[in-house]
């Protein structure tokens, strides 16, 4: 599961959707793996532009990465190759292989095993 995925995930529990605390889900005990991919500036730019930046900053801290820019790169910063390369590495090359994702609203924890996050719910939460 690539790190960028976390920007599209929320709690699977229906009642949590409306709560701002259900995004982003919080990483715990994450084990990361790097898998190199070809870099192309325009490619990562088009991905950055669709991200929820506040949500990304939260998980970057939780995963222990060095900080990313305070605000979403645009204009000149969106053409800064070093920033683009760092974000390419973080978003597309870094995979979460093991760990947990926890909902900030209901506290439910989803397990990640061999890179596959399990969002099936126990029957009392369906």
């Amino acid at each position, binding site marked *: *599961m690539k790190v960028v995925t976390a920007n599209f995930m929320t709690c699977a529990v229906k009642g949590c959707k409306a709560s701002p605390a259900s995004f982003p889900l919080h990483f715990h005990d994450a084990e990361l793996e790097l898998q190199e991919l070809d870099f192309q500036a325009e490619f990562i730019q088009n991905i950055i532009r*669709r991200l929820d930046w506040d949500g990304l900053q939260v998980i970057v801290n939780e995963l222990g990465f060095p900080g990313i820019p305070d605000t979403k790169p645009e204009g000149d910063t969106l053409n800064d190759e070093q920033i683009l390369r760092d974000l390419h590495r973080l978003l597309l090359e870094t995979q979460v292989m093991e760990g947990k994702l926890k909902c900030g609203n209901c506290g439910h924890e989803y397990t990640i095993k061999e890179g596959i996050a399990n969002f*099936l719910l126990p029957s009392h939460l369906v």
Partner: protein
Amino acid sequence: MLPTPCTSHVSFDTIYEPSEDSYLFLDTLSSESESTWLSNRFNSTPTTAPANNTQSTSTSPLVVEVGTGSGVVLGFVAANSQLIFGRRDILALGTDVNRNACLATRETAVKAVREQQTPASESVPTAKTPYIASIMSDLCTPLRPGSVDVLLFNPPYVPSEEAPRLPTVTEQEDKKDLSRSAKFEQDSYFLSLTYAGGVDGMETTDRLLEAIPGILDPVRGVAYVLLCKQNRPEEVKDRIRGWGNGWKAETVGNSGKQAGWEKLVIVRVWRSE
């Protein structure tokens, strides 16, 4: 003809083997009419924009397949993203209730992309379409509202007495000590999830359709859903049109007629004013 992704690594004990419905998906999405429609909708380089003006390019589409099985459809879409969407920077994500299907899809997609998107020249590296994750979930329940640009669904559409229950969260942990009969029973259960659709074969599809207005991007979102004739596609389309708010539903692919009926159809669901 475009190559079909290799699924020789997939064990079909619990996973649906690519069949006529899967291939109808591949043919429909890569048809000239549908790839033109999608490329227009997700156009990455408007010809009127200056080449270095990235702000005029639309952002990367998130393409999600629900119930990926072997991954043959999503792998094909990712590997042929340039042809289908007119761009390679799509983000491909798959969900399935079956853990084995999630693992299989990841391998199918990564292999298909690697085989078809290797750059012609080493000196100009072109980024490949990223397969971002396989996720175990009921349909698209853990995805953020409004986040999905393209949703693909080849459902369990065969009418059956009832739709099988969903797997519980822990029942897919490794169970190496299963007896042969217990393993057979478990495999049959997982296979039933791939085809048994309950009443009219629509129980699972109805739940997915219900989720569409919430999960799709409100402006450019589009869903492709396969139906068989027992699902009564014309009624399903009328129901979608009845949502109002500019929702549209059209048949964009079919498996040919049998006694005057289209056996399998693919319906495109989208909004336009």
